[in-house]
């Protein structure tokens, strides 16, 4: 990973990759959601509201994957002092928070017609809400440290500590008697309880949103690296 520690080398890859990820992601999202909204089957229990799953589940996965990315970046910053790790962590935080909020909102909209309630303080929903608060806290801490000219060590420690919420979210439907259903998708062959006609658009949607997420992270990293370059140049000019 230290091969890409040099911003110039990183940017050489990031520039073309941003467009590829963005456009490929957008195309897959359109295909998957087009199918999900207009062509996909209704569920015999959930009815038409099953169509919300094609946006809700990818948003949930990305909310959790985002914090996994933050925790990984934090570890790289603290242990290996990778120069781009802090930039990556901060770049992931905003889209991670947005997709977590989308997950909570779409989950509420799915819950009203199916469970009869927009919200329930069960293990899964509460721990996802905690994740959103963690993202907001991370962003506030990162901004405060940057303003004081800090390296972002406290932010990185927060990023690592917050990762404890991820297994809580994942296992909440097993540990507690929750309203939210248990996992329907398993990567062990034959043990998914979701029908194939719903599984493939869900996986395509998840892939599409993941590629778009990658493009957003790269855009935010490129923006921060450019701002750092301007700041450094202005400081140099002021001292001359």
């Amino acid at each position, binding site marked *: 990973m230290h091969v890409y520690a040099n911003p110039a080398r990183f940017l050489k890859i990031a520039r073309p990759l941003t467009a590829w990820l963005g456009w490929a992601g957008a195309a897959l999202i359109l295909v998957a959601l087009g199918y999900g909204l207009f062509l996909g089957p209704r569920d015999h229990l959930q009815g038409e509201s099953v169509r919300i799953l094609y946006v809700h589940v990818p948003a949930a996965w990305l909310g959790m994957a985002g914090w996994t990315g933050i925790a990984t970046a934090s570890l790289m910053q603290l242990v290996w002092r990778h120069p781009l790790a802090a930039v990556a962590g901060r770049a992931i935080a905003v889209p991670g928070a947005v997709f977590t909020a989308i997950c909570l909102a779409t989950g509420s909209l799915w819950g*009203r017609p199916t469970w009869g309630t927009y919200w329930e303080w069960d293990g899964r929903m509460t721990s996802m809400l905690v994740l959103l608060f963690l993202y907001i806290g991370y962003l506030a801490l990162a901004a405060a440290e940057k303003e004081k000219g800090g390296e972002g060590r406290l932010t990185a420690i927060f990023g690592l500590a917050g990762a404890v919420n991820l297994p809580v979210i994942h296992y909440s439907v097993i540990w507690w008697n929750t309203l939210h259903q248990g996992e329907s998708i398993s990567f062990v062959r034959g043990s998914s309880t979701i029908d194939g006609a719903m599984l493939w658009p869900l996986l395509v949607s998840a892939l599409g949103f993941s590629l778009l997420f990658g493009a957003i992270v790269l855009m935010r990293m490129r923006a921060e690296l450019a701002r750092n370059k301007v700041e450094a140049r202005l400081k140099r000019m002021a001292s001359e």
Partner: protein
Amino acid sequence: MSHWPFIIAAYALTALGALGVTLWSFAAMRRAEADAEALGKRP
């Protein structure tokens, strides 16, 4: 109760959120890279 208003609201919120963060990030990137390029051209 029809489920369709909830489905449309969910898709609209997702489109708003995803497009919003994408466009915001793109605009921030273009602005920052343009500033860096302009500063780099100064003697």
